[in-house]
């Protein structure tokens, strides 16, 4: 159709965006543009220099920038437009974009949002105290150290013990900055236990069952006050505070658009093929499941891109209607969040979810009264749990529930 400027517009050039572009390119689509608001492509891996990428895609560990470079070599025909911000998504495949010359509008046959995730910073977590400089996130830290080559502080405290918290530790080690401590509200680290070895090797204590009760410093940070097990108060002098992890999807464009959102977390609804409530828009990658590893996002993007290629080739007849995947307490979000029937692919689907608190018990999926899946699982927050090959019936909502106790895994 001549009224379309391009076939597919992909928003975001992280692993999932590059993957979708690659799949579409390999399917023969020429008119694909990946929009990136930063000056350089790559998303989060661009400033993540430890070798936590590539194992699944390239069967070897790679740094973030090397991973991205290798991915880009797989899609030589894809056009990237950097320093270009998408400011609005509208029905009919319309994107409003801003670059140095101002605003313009483009129309694409299909739009893929791959806008990624970011950490929840201090304010969003309602952390008490004053508001001095020196309070940042791991993402910002990585950019300070690797991109700007600047040292934001010398004696920081890391808040959180997710995988990314140890990435912060790694980044500090690279810069020769020794953190004072790591702080964890729970009784164990959120990442896999061996990660503590890095902290141990660097001589950084991890304070468990500990929360921040005060941040001090008028202009720059001077100390934090912590409370351990609800009764032990301690002052920790420091000049930096890194809020790590607690990822949230960067869904600003989707949330301000016509797309249907899950009202409880404001994440756009996506079906098992990453199609949203608007069949001309997909949302892929960490925007809907903050945050999985770069390799997982890449593999997801390949599948999602291949599906869009089939859709644009006219090989898929897709139901407009969709059924919800409802979930009970203790579950943060599911991917997909809706189910839709089509004449293509497997009637079985994979369901991923994240829990809000540690859980040990039975994970159960039901269609009304009928239980279609039941399995004992141990679930930890920040880890993706995937249930595979779940059957579904067109038009019927399904319920995901946890039967057992939360907060039981110590």
């Amino acid at each position: 159709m001549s009224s379309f400027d391009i076939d597919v517009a992909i928003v975001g050039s992280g692993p999932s965006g590059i993957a979708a572009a690659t799949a579409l390119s390999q399917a023969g689509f020429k008119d694909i543009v990946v929009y990136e608001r930063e000056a350089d492509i790559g998303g989060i891996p661009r400033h993540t220099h430890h070798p936590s990428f590539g194992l699944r895609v390239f069967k070897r560990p790679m740094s973030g920038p090397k991973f991205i470079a290798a991915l880009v070599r797989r899609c030589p025909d894809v056009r990237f437009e950097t320093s270009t911000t998408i400011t609005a998504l509208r029905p009919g495949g319309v994107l409003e974009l801003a670059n140095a010359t101002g605003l313009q509008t483009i129309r694409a046959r299909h739009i893929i949002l791959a806008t990624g995730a970011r950490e929840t910073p201090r304010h969003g977590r309602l952390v008490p105290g004053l508001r001095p400089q020196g309070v940042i996130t791991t993402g910002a830290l990585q950019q300070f150290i690797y991109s700007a080559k600047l040292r934001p502080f010398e004696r920081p405290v890391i808040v959180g013990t997710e995988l990314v918290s140890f990435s912060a530790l790694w980044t500090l080690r690279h810069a020769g900055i020794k953190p004072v401590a790591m702080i964890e509200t729970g009784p164990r680290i959120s990442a896999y236990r061996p990660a503590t070895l890095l902290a141990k090797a660097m001589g950084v204590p991890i304070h468990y069952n500990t929360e921040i009760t005060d941040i001090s410093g008028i202009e720059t940070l001077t100390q934090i006050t912590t409370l351990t097990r609800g009764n032990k108060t301690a002052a920790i002098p420091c000049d930096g505070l890194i809020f790590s992890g607690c990822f949230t999807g960067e869904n600003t464009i989707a949330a301000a658009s016509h797309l249907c959102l899950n009202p409880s977390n404001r994440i756009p609804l996506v079906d098992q093929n990453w199609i949203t409530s608007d069949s001309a828009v997909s949302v892929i990658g960490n925007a809907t499941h903050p945050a999985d590893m770069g390799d997982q996002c890449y593999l997801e993007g390949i599948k999602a891109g291949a599906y869009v290629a089939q859709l644009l080739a006219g090989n898929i007849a897709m139901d407009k209607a969709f059924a919800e995947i409802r979930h009970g307490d203790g579950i943060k979000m599911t991917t997909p969040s809706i189910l839709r029937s089509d004449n293509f692919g497997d009637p079985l689907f994979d369901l991923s979810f994240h829990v809000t608190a540690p859980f040990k018990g039975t994970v159960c999926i039901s269609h009304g009264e009928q239980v279609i899946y039941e399995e004992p699982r141990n679930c930890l927050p920040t880890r993706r749990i995937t249930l595979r090959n779940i059957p579904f019936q067109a038009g019927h909502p399904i319920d995901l529930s946890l039967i057992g106790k939360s907060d039981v895994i110590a």
Partner: protein
Amino acid sequence: MPEARWDVIVIGGGVVGCAVTRRFALAGAKTLLLERGRDILSGASKANSAILHTGFDAPPGSLEVACMQAGYKEYLDIHARLNLPMLKTAALVVAWTEEQLAQLDGIVSKAHENGVDDARQISRKDLLSREDGLSKTALGAVEVPREYVIDPWSAPLAYLKQAVRAGAGYQFDTEIKSGAFDGEYWHLDTGQQRFSGRLVINCTGTNGDNIEHICRKPGFEIRPRKGQFLVYDKSASALINSIILPVPTATTKGVVLTKTIFGNLLLGPTAEEQQDRNVATVEREMLEGLIATGTEMLPGLAGHSVTATYAGLRPATQFKDYQISAEPGKNWIGVNGIRSTGLTAALGIAAFVEKLCSETYSDIADFRPAPIPDWPVMPVLAEHGKRAYQQGDGTEIVCHCERVTRGEIEAALDESDVPARSLGGLRRRTRVMMGRCNGFYCSARVAELTQGRISPPLAGHKKDQT
């Protein structure tokens, strides 16, 4: 070097100090503004609810309502020339209980007594049709059509910029510790530096009584009242149309829900008495309490994320009204007890102070002829305005959440009137790092762009500094 001699020295660069400096500079006085912080708005003025009030609920006959209404009128007169934004939202004082519903009548009468003739009671049905996001437990409201939302930081900056263009001086990082009056001039001292001026105007807000002691025994004491606020992400702004005010109690105006000029939704403030005049912490329990209150009024808030939390100190005194007075024979005017209405009243207070000056000190007030005012044009920061990124200023967006371009950041650092010299100053001038990610995406880039330009720096502390 001979010591500079000023006609007027204004102590305190809050919104009132900036407006007073502007007024005297435009009147032709050689005026100097001294501020102890690193930028204007380092104290009470940086944290408020950014509403341009009609004065509908102020005490009738008070100096406060007079200054608010004069300030309101002057803001309407001058804002377009300064390119200052205004969002004509109107306000709704919502009754949530039968008891509050019965008070609406009185609120309308008081508004009319204050000359706000268009305030009127509206029914529950009208209220809910105008504000369909409000909880259905709302019972009715008073509509105040001319309550508006403005930019609390660009307005005072514009006042000072205009003053500077009229010949005013200013100096930050300058805390006055003492002073002496020689019968003709005041000599104010920081311990390292001395400033001499014929007239001193004390606009120091939460430090007002301490500074007042330089001249006289203050007739009031500052009793700081802390207000904590939450700023919700821009997605929440569409949940309301008007400013949602509660029915005030004897002690507090209560928790307000309002759009900000930047397209966010603001919830607050709390009202807490405290001793400390300099620091205002946020506390989790209070913030969670605000969220509970806000979500009860506006159920759709649940699920929207919080972009920022902040707290401010209002320079309340034991008195309800402003405490503005001149000390005859001592060339001193104290402008104190400007509680939470300073943003609205500032221009009116400035006019009142100028009048007080000419009435009390006719010899000083004979300033040289006023220059023709030059009107600085403020950059567009309002969400509803045409922002730099939309116009295409030839540079890239640095702060993605607030869509701030490199050009805007460089302009705020490079401009000659009152450039940004601290991170707070840069944030308030451009919105950079004010968004939902709190600098996740842009703070390192901002550190690069501001290297050697702001203090304290965002990065690059030397190891021997602590």
